């Protein structure tokens, strides 16, 4: 069995002392920021990227991946105990998890969340191992036209995730693409939009953009609201589930795992979308939907399994196609390029140890997370009591030092402040920043593939429609657009109608 020998190779890499250590650091940090509301995986990974310069690439990626799926575990703790989403993907866990806690079942809710996440994590690891190789082989057949179409599809699919206006989300992508091409043009050597500033000739660092838009902007918005945080319970006990409770939760866990695995693979998917879809499904198929919102164990089990599965399988498009499906994966692209690894289908053949080591580490990380999150829950509860007024200056500080150390450059720190303002403006205007970051990462790649495709076809734009794979992806992108647009069209029509009637 190829799969088994590959996994064995991966386990061999992941089980070295150094990689176990970084895996542990990753999941520990992930749990930490997952528990703390107000800081998510995107700024954390951005903050830690500079440190990974010094690490071997495998260890670096193992640690960064651990932060992402670790945050899914930590997020549920805060959702259950404080009724605040520690992580955006735990929003739905608040609904039933907090209700369980109010009925004295906090321990059980935490157990179900951790258990579900673990089962989902194990399954998702196998999904990644099984599906990544054939997809990567398929992707090796891609030419520039296919890549361009694939990016169009990926970016449009990412819009599905963005809440709110479709038009704004697409505009954010285009703006991201535009910001991405600032700097020296690879083909002509011309400096584009760098205004003679030497620091801009290499382009704006994506850490600068990510930290400004996600890190700083979020702190500002949090500070505009008055803090209200109440830890529901001091002592969490009764972690053990009764057999009957386990039997109730298991089908929901399995369904959540399935949904999460599928939605994670799709471009634009990931943890948050998976959790929402799983909750909706559980509510739909429940015999007694009225229990939801009143502490239904399935309402915790389904979404918590789904978000963890989704977090892990969203590595598939990154590892096989080199296309990041969400903002965290966009940062992983950055982490790989720092170590001069070009993400894409060739990673698996040129760097099998990195590829399989990363996948195997996910399972090991999940084992560590169960231990971290259940027996040691008391520590995390205490952490929740650190007030935000002490927390955010420290986050700011680490962000600043992180940005500075990228290139030992003060200019980058000032640029991040600028993107912080921009991010705040986007929040005020209800423009989701994630599509911008994706566009930003893909901008240069997209231009390059567009150029090459049209160069090969001698300027004939029909090349995108005559190659079957490319056509298929563009048709898929078109269908996707249609699906999102149709209800929106109806809605605006209704609005207009209402106004006329009034």
């Amino acid at each position, binding site marked *: 069995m190829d799969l088994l020998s590959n996994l064995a190779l991966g386990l061999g890499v992941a089980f070295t002392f150094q990689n176990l250590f970084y895996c542990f650091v990753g999941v520990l940090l992930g749990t930490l920021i997952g528990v703390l509301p107000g800081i998510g995986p995107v700024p954390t990974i951005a903050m830690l990227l500079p*440190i990974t310069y*010094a690490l071997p690439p495998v260890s670096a990626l193992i640690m960064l991946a651990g932060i992402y799926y670790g945050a899914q575990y930590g997020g549920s703790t805060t959702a259950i105990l404080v009724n605040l989403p520690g992580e955006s993907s735990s929003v739905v866990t608040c609904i039933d998890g907090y209700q369980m806690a109010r009925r004295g079942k906090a321990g059980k809710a935490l157990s179900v969340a951790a258990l579900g996440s673990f089962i989902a994590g194990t399954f998702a690891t196998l999904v990644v191992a099984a599906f990544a190789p054939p997809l990567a082989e398929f992707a090796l057949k891609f030419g520039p036209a296919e890549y361009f179409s694939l990016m169009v599809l990926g970016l449009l699919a990412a819009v599905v995730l963005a809440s709110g*206006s479709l*038009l*704004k989300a*697409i*505009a954010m992508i*285009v*703006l991201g*693409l*535009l910001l991405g*091409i600032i700097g020296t043009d690879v*083909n*002509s050597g*011309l400096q*584009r*939009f760098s205004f003679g500033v030497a620091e801009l000739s290499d382009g704006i660092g994506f850490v600068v953009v990510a930290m400004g838009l996600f890190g*700083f902007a979020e*702190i*500002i*918005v949090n*500070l*505009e*609201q*008055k803090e209200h945080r109440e830890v529901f319970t001091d002592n969490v006990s009764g972690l053990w589930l009764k057999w009957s409770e386990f039997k109730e939760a298991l089908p929901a866990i399995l369904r959540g795992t399935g949904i999460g695995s599928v939605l994670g693979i799709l471009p634009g998917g990931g943890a948050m979308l998976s959790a929402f879809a799983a909750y909706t499904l559980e509510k739909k198929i429940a015999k007694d939907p009225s229990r939801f919102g009143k502490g239904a164990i399935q309402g915790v089990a389904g979404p918590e399994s789904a978000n963890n599965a989704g977090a892990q399988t969203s590595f598939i498009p990154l590892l096989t196609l080199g296309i990041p499906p969400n903002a965290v994966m966009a940062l992983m692209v950055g982490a790989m390029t720092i170590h001069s690894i070009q993400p894409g289908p060739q990673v698996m053949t040129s760097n099998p140890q990195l590829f399989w080591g990363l996948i195997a580490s996910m399972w090991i990380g999940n084992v560590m997370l169960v231990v971290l999150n259940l027996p040691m829950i008391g520590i995390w509860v205490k952490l929740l009591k650190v*007030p935000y*007024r*002490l927390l*955010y*200056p*420290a986050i*700011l*500080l680490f962000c*600043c*030092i992180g940005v*500075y*150390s990228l290139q*030992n450059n*003060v200019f980058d*720190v*000032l640029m991040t*402040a600028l993107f*912080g*303002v921009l991010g*705040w*403006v986007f929040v*005020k*205007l209800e*423009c989701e920043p994630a599509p911008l970051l994706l566009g930003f990462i893909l901008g240069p790649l997209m231009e390059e593939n*567009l*150029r090459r495709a*049209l*160069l090969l*076809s*001698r*300027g*004939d*734009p029909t090349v995108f429609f005559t190659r079957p794979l490319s056509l298929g992806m563009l048709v898929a992108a078109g269908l996707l657009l249609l699906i999102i647009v149709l209800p929106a069209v109806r809605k*605006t029509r209704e609005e*207009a109608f209402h106004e006329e009637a009034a």
Partner: protein
Amino acid sequence: MSLIRNPKDFGSGCLFAGFGLAAVILGASYPVGTAARMGPGYFPRALGLILIAMGAVLILKSLRTTGPAITIPTLKPVFVVLASVVVFGLAVIPLGLVLATILLIVVSSTASHEFRWKEALVASVVLAAFVVAAFGYGLNLQLPILPPFLGRS
């Protein structure tokens, strides 16, 4: 009733159109080339024009649909948080990591509605010590730790 009925759409429309316009104007001198032999100006100009179009649609939409107003409860956090970052950036080379950290923490802490002088000062000193230990010595960051004019030995 004012003309702009959806301020958020209007604002984002202006923002996108502005960026698009800037791209087209600033990139006017870049050679565009042809589709087969694209110059460095081709892709940015195309993106700029798309942004202008999308911005225009959003602006038009804002006149025809209604939406909630833009709410800014207080401007203090934006100014204070960003000022503290800029202060850090400007101070870190001439004053060194320790003083820059203390400045950043104290300035940024004032943005909270629960700001306390003593607490902020204590936090800043603790964090400065941690940062020097972790980044200055541990990771050997290329930064002056103490103000260079004090002489670093």
